[in-house]
């Protein structure tokens, strides 16, 4: 187990290291001088040079890469070119919107997907199965930003239940925040729920064929009891993998949704930062997102190894 863990950890660090190099190079080739962007129209070259020196832009690429990495290791992500505050502060501030939104969307999608998947699987071939999976097919095909536009049209414009845009801020309290995140969360959750319910359905179907379910049935449990007591836990394994991946996808995938609803989240921040050539922000956020993905993959791998000893042994070989 220890050597499996070490092997996984090593590959995690290696992935992160290579990822930072790729991100750095990609950022290096971006046209446009950040100092010139910050100075605006003024053509004072001395001031621009001083600013470049202050930002460390006059150093060699190698030194800049090294400074960036060593800074990040101690939590110093640098100063945003446009906001003039530390990137870490900026990111933390935006996470107070993006993280709740992501969790909200994940909860919604799980609440919808798991019952749908279980019902579909246990009534395989019935009308409700066909209907639910047909709906899921349509759900997968709907681009979330279009769904968001439709939600705004229906709930904000026509019914006026929700304000169309903006974020009330945490000072307003929990429920106003929840309300302002509801439409964005639904638009993010629906396509994810559609995918998840399909995974859940096939996972339950798979599990129901297993020997231990047959044993449970032979022992006298009904199909439903066998499923609830023994099946669901096992059926959840692939679903958890997908959930893990969806978490990191949603954290960054809210870019367009956050723009539609004018939410001051991470996605919108990075999108604006790309447009404004605030490269240090882009660099840091992409790195953090890669870190999130890699960490989640690592944790899922660990969970698998914990559940399934065969994998553990293979890792040790």
């Amino acid at each position, binding site marked *: 187990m220890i050597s499996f863990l070490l092997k996984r950890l090593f*590959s995690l660090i290696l992935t992160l290291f290579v990822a930072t190099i790729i991100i750095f190079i990609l950022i290096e080739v971006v046209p446009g001088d950040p100092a010139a962007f910050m100075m605006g129209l003024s053509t004072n070259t001395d001031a621009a040079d001083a600013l470049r020196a202050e930002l460390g832009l006059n150093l060699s690429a190698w030194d800049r890469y090294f400074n960036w990495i060593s800074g990040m290791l101690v939590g110093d992500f640098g100063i945003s070119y446009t906001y003039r505050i530390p990137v870490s502060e900026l990111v933390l501030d935006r996470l107070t919107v993006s993280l709740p939104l992501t969790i909200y969307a994940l909860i919604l999608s799980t609440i919808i997907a798991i019952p749908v998947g279980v019902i579909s699987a246990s009534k395989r071939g019935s009308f409700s199965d066909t209907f639910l999976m047909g709906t899921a097919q349509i759900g997968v095909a709907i*681009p979330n930003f279009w769904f968001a536009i439709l939600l705004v*049209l229906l709930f904000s414009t026509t019914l006026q239940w929700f304000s169309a845009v903006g974020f009330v801020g945490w000072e307003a309290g929990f429920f106003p925040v929840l309300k302002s995140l509801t439409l964005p969360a639904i638009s993010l959750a629906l396509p994810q729920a559609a995918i998840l319910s399909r995974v859940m359905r096939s996972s339950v179907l798979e599990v129901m064929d297993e020997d231990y379910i047959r044993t449970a049935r032979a022992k006298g449990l009904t199909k439903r009891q066998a499923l609830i007591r023994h099946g669901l836990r096992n059926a959840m394994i692939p679903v958890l993998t997908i959930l893990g991946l969806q978490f990191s996808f949603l954290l960054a995938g809210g870019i367009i949704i956050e723009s539609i609803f004018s939410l001051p989240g991470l996605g919108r921040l990075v999108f604006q930062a790309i447009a404004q050539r605030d490269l240090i922000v882009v660099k840091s956020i992409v790195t953090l997102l*890669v870190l999130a993905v890699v960490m989640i993959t690592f944790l899922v791998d660990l969970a698998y190894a914990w559940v399934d000893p065969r994998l553990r042994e293979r890792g040790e070989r």
Partner: protein
Amino acid sequence: MIIQLFKKSPLSFKIGFFISIAYVIAALLSFIWTPYDVMAINLEKRFIAPGIGHIFGTDHFGRDILSMIMVGARNAIAVSLVAVGIGMIIGVPLGLWSAATRSTGGRVIDEILMRGNDLVFAFPSLLMAIMITAVFGPGAMNAIIAIGIFNIPVFARMSRGGALGLWEKEYIMAARVAGKGKAKISYEHILPNIMNLLIVQATIQFSIAIIAEASLSYVGLGTQPPNPSLGRMLFEAQTMIFFAPWLALVPGLAIVMLVLGLNLMGDGLRDILDPKLRRKEPDGVEAKQNVSS
């Protein structure tokens, strides 16, 4: 024989097939004919609601929505087709190479390629596509590249997984004994056997690419105006949604129908081409096992 197979195919496949074919025909037709000129601005005819003459209505420049959707769908299909093509042309050989070296005793190349795969997977794809198109300039070409890059690991992993199982088979053994090289075996014996798998995956990736293209055009980084694109139409419709809701509804539905058609066709193809696959559907576990082993 194909006709018989089609008759026996599930209803969902038939629906998906006809939807997809309808789009392809509309897209091809748009090269030579559209009901109206998509570039022509006619302010007298703007905001005409759907009806006779303009069945999907007109937009704020008086352009015919149906014509724009035909051309927009053509652009989306072209971008996605090339992007998925890039993913296959680069990804499949990489996956086959990986499997071949691993099955003949080497581990290093396989490890490097698969870790590289994981690396690409670790990047948030939409964000990277936005970054790539922002850095290298917006436009269809860069959208293709941005979407294509993220298709490479999908096909590499898929073909590696399929090929690894085949390398254990007797006929591959026989081919090795007969003195065929790794590349020759991969091309002559492995590739034809994983083709079904790849076709199904390509259909699915194609539908994902359609949504990705729409997303990129929506944020203004895909196909550039005045060339119509479905994503861009949705973006422009947003501010006019209160008095001209068809501007948002029609292009959105066009995307949904196209993606739905492709997905239904992909699912149906999977059932037709390989009935065994259907039972192994929750491939999450298997995929993970492949990664760890």
